[in-house]
């Protein structure tokens, strides 16, 4: 099949950027979307044109490195699918496709379709963990975990940190990403001790990083390639509100707790 692409080209973060049109003949239906771009890039290099920059790595939908907007939808808008797992059989001859990077203040463009998502790492560094120094763990079976809780934790832990939720959100909020981590750890007995601190610290860092507030529109859930449920945001709100009322300043007395 033959496709027409309009791709956002932007040399670097300072550049203004704009759409450029490309014709891609001979697209095979078995190709992945990124393989189609590989073929386009090979042709560009042979002509001496700068290839299109896009992030990708594992190409099996788990590393979270890839992602851009296809016709205004994050990862193309196919259920549970990252762009590296999207195959060309979903498109047809003559289609016109528009590609743009994630658009969010907290994700500045590096080049073309590649953006900087370091703000996500800073949110995890603020509190998205259980403090357990290496070597200090009890036996793995010492604390039974209800199967249902383990499954719910796993559902939320499936987040790949790609940023589609932010890109899909009209507010560019990171509520689904933050909620996924809060739910993952909050569903487990091991995650209870730091639950309040985690919610406060992660939400604070999210706001600092320039993500806007959640207004419960739900675009994030629709766009999430790992199908993280909107209910994780309710858990953030629940944990955050509770913590905001009950958390007390840490004692300054040495050795307390």
């Amino acid at each position: 099949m033959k496709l027409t692409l309009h791709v956002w080209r932007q040399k670097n973060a300072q550049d203004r950027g704009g759409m450029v049109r490309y014709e891609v003949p001979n697209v095979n239906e078995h190709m992945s979307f990124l393989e189609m771009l590989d073929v386009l890039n090979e042709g560009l290099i042979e002509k001496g044109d700068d290839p299109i920059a896009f992030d990708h790595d594992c190409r099996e939908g788990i590393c979270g490195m890839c992602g851009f907007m296809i016709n205004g939808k994050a990862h193309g808008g196919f259920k549970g699918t990252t762009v590296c797992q999207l195959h060309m059989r979903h498109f047809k001859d003559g289609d016109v496709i528009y590609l743009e990077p994630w658009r969010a203040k907290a994700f500045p463009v590096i080049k073309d379709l590649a953006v900087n998502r370091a703000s996500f790492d800073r949110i995890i560094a603020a509190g998205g963990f259980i403090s357990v120094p290496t070597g200090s763990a009890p036996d793995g079976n010492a604390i039974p975990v209800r199967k249902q809780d383990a499954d719910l934790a796993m559902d939320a832990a499936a987040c790949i940190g790609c940023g589609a939720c932010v890109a899909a959100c009209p507010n560019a909020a990171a509520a689904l990403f933050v909620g996924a981590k809060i739910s993952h750890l909050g569903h487990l007995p091991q995650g209870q001790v730091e639950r309040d601190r985690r919610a406060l610290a992660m939400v604070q860092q999210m706001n600092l990083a320039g993500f806007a507030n959640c207004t419960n529109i739900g675009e994030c859930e629709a766009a999430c390639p790992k199908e993280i449920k909107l209910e994780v945001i309710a858990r953030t709100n629940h944990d955050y509100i509770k913590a905001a009322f009950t958390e007390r300043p840490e004692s300054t007395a040495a050795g307390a707790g």
Partner: protein
Amino acid sequence: MELRSNVPSGPIEQSWDKHKFELKLINPANKRKYNIIVVGSGLAGGAAAASLGELGYNVQCFCYQDSPRRAHSIAAQGGINAAKNYHNDGDSVFRLFYDTVKGGDFRAREGNVYRLAQVSVNIIDQCVAQGVPFAREYGGLLDNRSFGGAQVSRTFYARGQTGQQLLLGAYQALERQIGHGTVKMYPRMDMLDLIVVDGQARGIVTRSLYDGKIEVHVGDAVVLATGGYGNVFYLSTNAKGCNATAIWRAYRRGALFANPCFTQIHPTCIPVAGEYQSKLTLMSESLRNDGRIWVPKKPGDKRPPASIPENERDYYLERRYPSFGNLVPRDIASRAAKAECDAGHGVGESGLGVYLDFTDAIQRLGKHKIAERYGNLFEMYERITGEDPYKVPMRIYPASHYTMGGLWVDYNLMSTIPGLFVLGEANFSDHGANRLGASALMQGLADGYFIIPYTIGNYLATAKPAKVAADAPAAKEAVANAAAITKKLLNGNGKRTVDSFHRELGKIVWDYCGMARNEAGLKKALSLIPPLREEFWKNVRVLGANEEFNQSLEKAGRVADFFELAELMCLDALDRKESCGGHFREEYQTPEGEALRDDTNYSYVAAWGYQGQGRAPALTKESLTFNYVKPSQRSYK
């Protein structure tokens, strides 16, 4: 050069404990005076950086991805082994040790493997405490499944995303240390050279992938945890960015490279669909718990699988290996699939594929149970192939997946360059000539969480490295070297893209140094690679400049190193005149077509040393002794 493994003497059950006690310590207040450089942020590197940061060292951690959470450990699907014996089915530390040594076809060091089996139990505890959502039984306790090469259920898993969950555990521990300021993270950085001062590893040269800036980072020790070199084949299950540059440039600075020809071809991957294909996708080995592998008995049978009656199907693994059946180790399953396809029994358009069929399991357990166990893998398969594996059997074919070879390390995980430690897939140490399923995650985390924190302290306390300035002559020389390579790649007025070279190189290595090797083929590969490499340097086209986000330039540097590594692989494969594990030399096989080892002449680790551009590498042997697991012809019948 003499290679000293430094495995402690005495009974193997006590070696690690004894060794840990004998290792020198650094007092907590002094640890922050030491700078440790960790390259790679996967299970091994991430766990190491986090654990060393917790101990109080000053750590700098580097990765090429945009975040440490994306290291390729994340893609491991099936599980992680541990000798917990939670299932009361006869598992023990000794059995895991035994299975691993046997699975590796008696080409691994006993002392290292025993320690790996010992610390496996701590890994599970650590990960559970971090919040890794392992699969649970209804009673709330941890669930297990079986993997190839074992007759016990010792594999812990988190759906089909075990690697992701373990990596996120290590990543969260790492981010916690970054938050505390003990670790400084440098994402989107390539390591381009190793800085060696007075014979000790003292730093690295990096290139920022954002803006091409070349920088020197000096430290008191360098830890490489940069993964394997499976992408030498171009098509592999590795992430596109996985590369050998860090270990290769360390090799060029004097670290020995051990057993480069020991590469693992994984039996269950989705077959290649076309020339444009950029990578291969693995279907977890865990599927072989419930899936049955078969081909039509009649060669060239093109009927759809459902219309081939039971008596015209050959369940060749169950037929040839009745006691392990579909769960034979990977090397054996891969070779068997190749043999069936070579004999014309292959399925699918290309004839390079065999069926992995879940019909019986769905009938026995119900679709619901199969979906619970493998749902995400089935979905992934359907997304890629457009076929529903609940209805039509999967088609699978072997693909490059893992590399057992890597930089040589001793029991302390230190390479032949003092102060250079190598962890995880980047080293050669634990899997011999074939790795068992669910053991890569185990080794990465064992090295990172439980071994390097002990052994690195002993090195620092004993070697007492002096301060090195960032503008030391060795550092300047390394920077000049890195800059020269980049410049050479950019100055070419060539015609061909980097990928076209990589694809051609990969095909040579796959055809002649893949699942089956022979003398004539290896010699052919050795005659084809050097001219192609020359053409690469003359005719490669890398556009743009160094001082920008330049993905072609990143790739070109990595492919340049794969050319040299490919040659060393073929040389090693030619030199090892026996078959063992993943290294199958067609000249050396039993009448039944199994690998025929030669323990009299080849029971050693082949460690190769760089002798300079254009000169043959020098071979040093570390002989292997087996005091606990007696080498025998591996049998899974």
